């Protein structure tokens, strides 16, 4: 049975509840649905990487991120995500796979990415989500820039060696 793979790269927001319904609609054979959603945080992730001083502002507070700008490579972004979904489907018996990734300016709290996978076995669907996120982080052409204040030129987010390392377990 062919795996049902659906990928969207879009500026618009998405509703994880609607994405869940899409994974489940008329799907009576897969008992397991796993989902991952990535959201914009309201402070720089560098604060969590053991360099808190790098993200302290002049008042000693955490440097807040009001907008995250996501740049992407149109065309390649879609094909890279589809390719990652196909690799997951080749490793685990999945029913449906859905990936949504946004680009453009995103506010704190907004959804950036959705990954969902259905399967007959829970661990397969969970592993597929982890695998897709790991490869998406290091192989899909998206770039994040943190912008604190209006007019601020922003700071490109540095790639994390932990993300590249995460691929080694697969």
């Amino acid at each position: 049975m062919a795996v049902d793979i659906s990928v969207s790269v879009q500026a618009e927001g998405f509703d994880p509840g609607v994405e869940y319904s899409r994974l489940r609609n008329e799907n009576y054979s897969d008992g397991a649905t796993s989902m991952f959603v990535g959201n914009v945080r309201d402070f720089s992730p560098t604060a969590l990487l053991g360099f808190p001083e790098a993200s302290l502002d002049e008042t000693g507070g955490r440097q807040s991120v009001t907008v995250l700008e996501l740049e992407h490579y149109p065309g390649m972004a879609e094909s890279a995500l589809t390719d990652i979904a196909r690799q997951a489907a080749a490793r685990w018996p999945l029913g449906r796979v859905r990936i949504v990734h946004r680009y453009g300016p995103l506010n704190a709290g907004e959804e950036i990415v959705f990954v969902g996978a259905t399967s007959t076995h829970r661990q397969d669907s969970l592993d597929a989500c982890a695998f897709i996120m790991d490869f998406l982080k290091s192989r899909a052409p998206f770039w994040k820039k943190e912008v604190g204040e209006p007019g601020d030129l922003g700071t490109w987010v540095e790639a994390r060696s932990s993300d590249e390392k995460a691929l080694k377990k697969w």
Partner: protein
Amino acid sequence: MIKVLFFASLREQLQRDGLEIEAAGLTSVTQLRSKLAEQGATWQSALSNEQLQVALNQKLSTMDAAIQDGDEVAFFPPVTGG
């Protein structure tokens, strides 16, 4: 012609999102990269970044990949989506 694209910090450093270049004499990504670097100190510096990644016809590739007329080659820093 070879279509060349730049993304993210590289696009900002070069202040352009791409260009087209004659394919004549360019048989690998490395050659293309060297040719582009000849355009000045900013290009030399931006393109010498060891972390630079390349996609050939919208697939991740390597610097030693062969290229030909009509190809699309994109240079960019390590990706940070998700």
